């Protein structure tokens, strides 16, 4: 049975509509502009949505116009039946990216070779533009919590994760993207910020980054840091993809529930991310209380509109600069 519950949090009930203190200043242009092109091995796929069971029927019937789909890898690590039937048909018509939730790259358990083999087999079938998972651990002692658990940001973590990422990339024979997770607690032993830790792992492992803009927003609120500091701390040439999603405001903390529409402050943070990193492949995640396909697709369309708007803005600015340059 296909499912994507791993990124849900079941505490969505009791949504508090009180406005959360925004971790994002709304004034534009706070983050410096993109200074380098995106990493070349990765195509820019446009704006897509997560492939979810609730939409299978609609997709197979209508083949809607959409740039790309992201699949939850584990949902398709099955011997056969409907999940793989749907995948095969989707792969014929759309670009696909594989997004995993059980690599557990930060776990102190040995890497699960059986899992990696299944991932590689799936990649042969899905022919993804790339594969990603999360900077977290999901279990220990052979057990799986099916949750994205936080790591301390220490030299020990950096070395541990970077070395495992290298092994995974060698095994899969493809680069890996690591995604920043939403988190609800922080360890006192952390020696550096989350963004510095992620950036250093990417540098040492030679891997890339899937920047989840909603997760930055959620964690910024939960830990009281500035979301823009996060964006500024991530190297431009490492980011390949964005995630966008809704969350739940529990008053004391935000929960990454993927069961609501994306809120305006997250859209504004996304705009800042596009200014800094460029119009990268963007993916809308919806994992619970899943609305009709068209509603999720409309959010992908909104992401595209923002990308176009920022591109226009950049062109106008470069036009002004050219006009002001006496050498031009």
């Amino acid at each position: 049975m296909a499912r994507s519950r791993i990124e849900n949090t079941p505490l969505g009930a009791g949504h508090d509509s009180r406005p959360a203190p925004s971790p994002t200043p709304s004034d534009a242009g706070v983050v410096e502009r993109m200074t380098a092109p995106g990493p070349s091995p990765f195509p820019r796929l446009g704006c897509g949505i997560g492939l979810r069971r609730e939409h299978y029927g609609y997709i197979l019937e209508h083949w809607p116009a959409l740039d790309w789909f992201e699949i939850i890898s584990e949902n398709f690590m099955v011997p056969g039946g409907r999940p793989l039937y749907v995948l095969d048909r989707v792969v014929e018509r759309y670009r696909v990216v594989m997004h995993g939730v059980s690599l557990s790259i930060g776990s102190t358990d040995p890497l699960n070779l059986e899992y990696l083999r299944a991932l590689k087999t799936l990649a042969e079938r899905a022919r993804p533009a790339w594969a990603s998972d999360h900077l977290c651990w999901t279990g220990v002692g052979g057990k799986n919590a099916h949750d994205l658990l936080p790591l301390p940001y220490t030299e020990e973590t950096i070395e541990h994760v970077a070395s495992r990422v290298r092994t995974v990339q060698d095994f899969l024979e493809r680069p890996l993207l690591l995604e920043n997770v939403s988190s609800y607690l922080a360890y006192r032993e952390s020696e550096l910020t989350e963004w510095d830790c992620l950036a250093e792992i990417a540098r040492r492992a030679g891997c890339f980054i899937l920047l989840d803009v909603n997760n930055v927003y959620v964690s910024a609120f939960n830990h009281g840091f500035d979301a823009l500091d996060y964006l500024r701390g991530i190297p431009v040439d490492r980011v390949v993809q964005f995630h966008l999603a809704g969350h739940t405001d529990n008053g004391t903390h935000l929960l990454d529930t993927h069961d609501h529409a994306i809120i305006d402050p997250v859209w504004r943070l996304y705009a800042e991310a596009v200014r800094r990193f460029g119009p990268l492949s963007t993916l809308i995640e919806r994992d619970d209380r899943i609305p009709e396909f068209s509603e999720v697709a409309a959010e992908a369309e909104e992401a595209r509109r923002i990308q176009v708007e920022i591109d226009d803005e950049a062109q106008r600015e470069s036009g002004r600069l050219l006009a002001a340059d006496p050498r031009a």
Partner: protein
Amino acid sequence: MTKLRENQDVFWRLIRAPEGVAAALAALPDRERVLPGGLEGWLHGDERLSALARLDVYANMYFFRLFDCLAEDFPATHAVVGHERFHGLVAEYLAVHPSEHPSVRMLGRALGDFLEAHPLCREVSYLPDLARFEWDLLGAFDAADAEPLSAERLQRLAPDDWPALRLELTPSLRILEARAPVQEVWSAATEGRELPRIAPQPTVLRIWREDLRVFHRTIDRVELAALRAVQRGARFAEMCDAAAALVGEERAASELATILHRWFADLAIVRLDVSPGGTGH
């Protein structure tokens, strides 16, 4: 043990404790060694959310995600037990059978067996079989694909081929020997009808997938014997002997003919082999 390992070990022990993080923390036997500064010395807390409350967020997410998963995979078991008691059942089940698989799809693998020894079973004796039925439906849903054989293949067999005939069943096929007609409870629960009261009555179910749809049907003891024979890799001659032992030689032949016809109609046969030795197409 490295620092990171210790960190993860204690984190995991605290978030999965059925009694909650605070109680688990108080009961932690090596607390002084692993958390010398207590929870506040390990994790940041603030006026909004204490360190304990923050760890509780993870403990709740752990439990409720897996609760939702089991409730979705075992809708009829959930309906029969009721929401509150299902909550308790899941907590007890996870304490004994935490997930050991990268896919949450495998979480319910042992629920049927777990229920055998559970007090709920004294109240609803068929509960383990209902859970097994739901697990088998899931198993059939995403079992390996296989091209079914057409019944014409049987017609092309020479009379001399029959005794050595061996069949292979579609990988999705499951057989459940239940204590009661649990499929009736399952149908009612999944269709939102009132749950029927069912009396104990040995019921054998065949569950399989045709193309992408999962089906089930009750089968009699002759078909059960024939299916078990096929699963053992027995030849048609042995299948006849097994059926004859149940209903006599004469009836066995006609009943097996009907059963074979039904298996092919249900797209349940994917290969046949009449060679005296190994296997072939």
